[in-house]
C-alpha cells in the first residue's frame, strides 16, 4: 500500500521534509517510485506567481521539440531550475537527460483571456506535449500551470530526492504533496505515479479503486480532454473533483456526496435530501468503492482528506496553526510537526471531509450529515 504525506505551511518548506516523512513510513512502500507536487511556491518562483510552470522529464531531443513548440506558441522562458545530476543514478532509477521545472511568460495573444480560457489552453498544451512524447518516450510532462511544480521518478523516495538534490534553496513550497509508491497492479509508468494534476486540482491516493472501470468509462465521455490517461486507477479522483467543481458548480463539501453518497434513513433525513438524492442518481457511475484515502489540493490552496465508505485505509491530519500535515501514519506527522498537540490529531472516518483552509489556522471537519453550504 502506498504511503502519503502532505503538508501545508505558512512558510515555504523543502520537499525533502516530505520525503523524510515518507521514509519514516518506508515499511509501507517498496521504493518503486515517488511523486511530488509543489504549490504556493517559495524561493525564486515567488516572483513568477502568475507564470505557468512546465514540469516534466525530457530527453535532449525531446527538449528541442519542446522549445520549438513553445517558441511557436509564443511562450518565453522566464525562469528555470537546473538539475545537475551525478553520472550514475541510484539503483532502479533510470538515467534521464533533463528534469524540467521551467516558468514561462504568456504569449501576448493571450492577454485579456479569462482565467477559465487560459486554464483550458494550458491543459491542451500539456496534453499536446504528452501526446508528442508518447511515441519515443522523450517528453513526459506532469503539469503546466501557474505556481505548480511536479517531480516524479522511479526509485526510493529519499534516495531519489538526494540524487535530484531537492534540498536546494530554490525549491520550496508552502504546499507539498508526496507519495511513496507501492507498485501493485500496473507496470511502473511515471504517468501512473501520484499525485495527479488537472487544471489547478491535485489528488493522491492510497489503496485500490475497485470501481475503476465503470468510473473511467463514464469520465471518458464527459467531454473534457483532460479526463484521460488512466494509467492508475487513482487518477479518476482528481477528475471527479474537477468535474464536480467545474461542471456541477459544487464545493469540496459535496465531494463525499458524489464518491460515497449517503444511504437509507440518513439520506432521507438530510436537510439537502433532494439535492443529494439527485446527485446520487446522476453521479451513480462516480461512486467509488475503495478502499481509498484521498488527499487533495484545490486551486485556492485549500487541502483536504477523505476516506471511502468502508474506511479501510489509514489517514491522519494534525499540526498547529501555521502548519498542518496529512499523513498515512502518525509517525509521518511526528517527523514533520513533532511539537503539535497530538490530542488534536484527527483520523477522518467514513462520513468526514477534513479541510485545511489557505490560512492554515485550524482543522475543519465536515460531516456528510451536515447541511451543505449555500451554493454559489
Amino acid at each position, binding site marked *: *500500500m502506498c504511503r502519503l504525506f502532505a503538508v501545508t505551511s505558512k512558510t515555504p518548506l523543502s520537499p525533502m521534509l516530505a520525503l523524510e516523512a515518507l521514509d519514516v513510513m518506508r515499511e509501507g512502500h517498496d521504493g518503486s517510485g515517488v511523486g511530488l507536487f509543489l504549490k504556493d511556491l517559495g524561493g525564486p518562483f515567488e516572483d513568477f506567481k502568475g507564470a505557468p510552470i512546465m514540469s516534466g522529464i525530457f530527453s535532449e531531443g525531446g527538449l528541442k521539440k519542446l522549445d520549438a513548440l513553445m517558441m511557436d506558441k509564443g511562450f518565453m522562458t522566464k525562469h528555470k531550475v537546473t538539475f545537475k545530476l551525478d553520472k550514475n543514478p541510484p539503483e532502479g532509477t533510470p538515467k534521464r537527460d533533463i528534469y524540467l521545472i521551467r516558468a514561462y511568460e504568456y504569449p501576448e495573444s493571450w492577454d485579456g483571456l479569462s482565467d477559465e480560457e487560459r486554464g483550458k489552453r494550458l491543459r491542451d498544451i500539456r496534453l499536446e506535449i504528452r501526446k508528442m512524447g508518447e511515441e519515443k518516450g522523450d517528453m513526459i510532462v506532469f503539469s503546466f500551470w501557474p505556481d505548480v511544480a511536479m517531480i516524479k521518478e522511479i526509485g526510493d523516495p529519499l534516495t531519489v530526492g538526494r540524487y535530484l538534490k531537492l534540498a536546494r534553496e530554490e525549491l520550496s513550497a508552502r504546499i507539498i504533496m508526496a507519495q511513496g509508491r507501492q507498485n501493485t497492479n500496473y507496470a511502473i509508468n511515471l504517468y501512473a505515479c501520484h499525485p495527479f494534476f488537472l487544471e489547478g486540482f491535485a489528488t493522491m491516493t492510497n489503496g485500490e479503486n475497485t470501481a475503476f472501470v*465503470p468510473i473511467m*468509462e463514464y469520465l471518458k465521455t*464527459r467531454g473534457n480532454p483532460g479526463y484521460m490517461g488512466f494509467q492508475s486507477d487513482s487518477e479518476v479522483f482528481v477528475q471527479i473533483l474537477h468535474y464536480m467543481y467545474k461542471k456541477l458548480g459544487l464545493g469540496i463539501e459535496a465531494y463525499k456526496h458524489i464518491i460515497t453518497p449517503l444511504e437509507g434513513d440518513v439520506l432521507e433525513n438530510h436537510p439537502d435530501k433532494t*439535492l443529494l438524492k439527485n446527485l446520487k*442518481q446522476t453521479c451513480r457511475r462516480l461512486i467509488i468503492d475503495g478502499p481509498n484515502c484521498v488527499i487533495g489540493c484545490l486551486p485556492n490552496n485549500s487541502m483536504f482528506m477523505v476516506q471511502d465508505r*468502508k474506511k479501510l485505509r489509514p489517514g491522519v491530519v494534525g499540526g498547529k496553526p501555521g502548519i498542518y500535515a496529512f499523513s498515512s501514519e502518525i509517525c509521518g506527522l511526528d517527523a514533520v510537526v513533532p511539537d503539535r498537540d497530538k490530542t488534536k490529531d484527527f483520523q477522518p472516518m467514513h462520513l468526514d471531509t477534513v479541510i485545511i483552509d489557505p490560512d492554515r489556522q485550524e482543522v475543519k471537519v465536515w460531516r456528510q450529515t451536515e447541511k451543505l453550504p449555500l451554493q454559489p
Partner: protein
Amino acid sequence: MAANREITPSTLSVKDLYWQIDWSKEKCTLCGRCTSVCPVNAIELGVFRKRDIKVGLSKGFVPSNNYETFYGIRQRTAPAYACIGCGMCNMVCPNNAIISMRNDEGDKQRFHIDQGGQPPRRGGRRNDSGSLLDQIKFVRISMLTDPALDAGRHEFQVNTLLGRVLPPEENMKMLREEGWTPPVREIYPLVIGGMSFGALSPPMWEGLQMGVAYLNEQLGMPVRMCTGEGGCPPRLLRSRFIKYVILQIASGYFGWDEIIHAIPEMKEDPCAIEIKYGQGAKPGDGGLLMWNKVTKLISAIRGVPRGVNLPSPPTHQTQYSIEESVAKMIQSMSMAWGFRVPVYPKISASSTSLAVLNNLTRNRYAAGLAIDGEDGGTGAAYNVSMDHMGHPIASNIRDCYNNLLTIGKENEIPLFAGGGIGKNGNLAANAAALIMLGASGVQTGKYVMQAAAGCVGSETQRCNICNIGQCPKGITSQDPRIFRRLDAEKVAERLVDMYLRFDTELKKIMAPLGRSTSLPIGMSDALAISDFNAAERLKIRYVV
C-alpha cells in the same frame, strides 16, 4: 408376426416416445391416482391378458395353459397423448410404482405432433441447457492490496435505478430552476419479469404479489413485479400495493380499459409502465393466451369474451414506426400519470436492438430499455419460434451498453436484461455477470416459477404445457380443480426465500470483488471466460 394394431404413418410404439412410463406391477396398488392426475391423459387403466404355461417332468403330467387377466397402467402412444415427463404420476403414487423416463435415443414423436396440419405449440422454454452466462467467472478477487469484504457483516448497497437519469449538469440546472426531472425509481436489481394474470393462475399471481409486498414492507427490499400483458385486478390497481407493480402494455392492450378507468382512483402511482414490443421466447410474435385459459375472471379483467383464443398482434397496430412507438407511446403513457411514472419499452434481443436503443437515447421520456434474450420463457408459443428465433442476451446487452458508453449515456438509460437468467439454477451468478456486462438489473420469470411454485419444467423438454391450462402444479392453469393445488401463501413464502438467497449470493459475489457501495454495473474487468471467441466478443478477459 402380425402387429397387434393397425400400422399407420403415425402409429408409434412406446419406444418412439420421448418420455416412457416405467411402471412396477409389484408395487402398484391400482389406486388410480396417477391416471387421474396426468395432465395429458398419457396413461390409462390397462387390462392385460397373461398366459401361464404349466409343464411338469413327472410321468403322466399333462401340460396345460392357464389364461389370466390382470390390471395395470398402460401408456398411450398416440402423439396427442404423449407423456410430457412432468412426473405428477410419481408424485401422487403412494408406492413410488410409476415414473417417467427419457428415451435413450432420439424420439419419433417430434415428426408427428402436427396432426391436422397444426404446428406444435407449447409453453415454457427453449429446452437448451447450454448457458454462456454459466461459463462466466468472476476473476478480479480482492487480495491484500484491497481486502475482500465480509459478505455476512458488511453493509451493501445493491439497489439500482429504473428511470431516465439526466446528465449531472442538466440535473443540477433543473434543480436550480425548479424544472421537471424525469421520475426515477430506486429498485432491487432482480425484477419479476412480465407474467400475466391469465398466463398465471390466481393463486400464483396472488402469491407473487403477497411475496413482493412482504419483501418491500417487512424486509425493506424494493422488489418490483411486472404484470405482463393482461391487466391487473381492479382492487390491486386501487391499493397502495400498486407501487410495487410495473404495469405492462403490449400489442393486445388487454386489461388497459380497466387500468385507465382506475387511474383517477389510484392511491399510489405504479412503479413503472413497461411497453412490450417483443419478448425473447418468441421474438416478432405477439402474446398468446389460449382459449381454455380465458375464464370468466380473466375475460372480465381483460375485457374480452370468454373462451376465445387471445393472440396479440406481433406489433402495436396503432404505430407504424419506431419513432412513433418511442415518441408517441412513451409520451402518452407518461402523460397518463402526469409524468410521474417511468415508461420504458421491452424488446426481444435482436440484431436491431441498437436501433431501438439509439432512438430511445434521443427521447428524454424513455426511462430505460428491457431486453429479453432467446432463453426467455413464455406461456404459449409455436415451437419453431421458441426453438429457433431470437438472439442471445449476453452479447446483446454488452453491445447496447458499449453503445451507451460511446455516446456517454451509460447512466442515463438503464438496461434491464432477461432471458435464461438462472436457467440452470445459478440465478445470482448469471444476474451478476449480466450486471457487470452492463445491465442495470435483470428480469426473471421461469426461475420464479420453479423456485416459488415448484414448476417442473426444465431445459430438457419436461412438461412445457403452460399453454393448455393443465399445468400439473396449478401455476399456469385457470381450472380451479387444478390451481387449488397451489397455496398462494406458500408461493409468497418461497418467493421471499428465493430473494433472500439471491441477496446473500449476490453479496457473496460482490464482497470478494471489493464492491459494496454500489451495484457493480459495467465492472467488466471482474469477468472472464475460457472461451476465446466469447471473450473477444464480450470484451472481457480470456482465461484458461
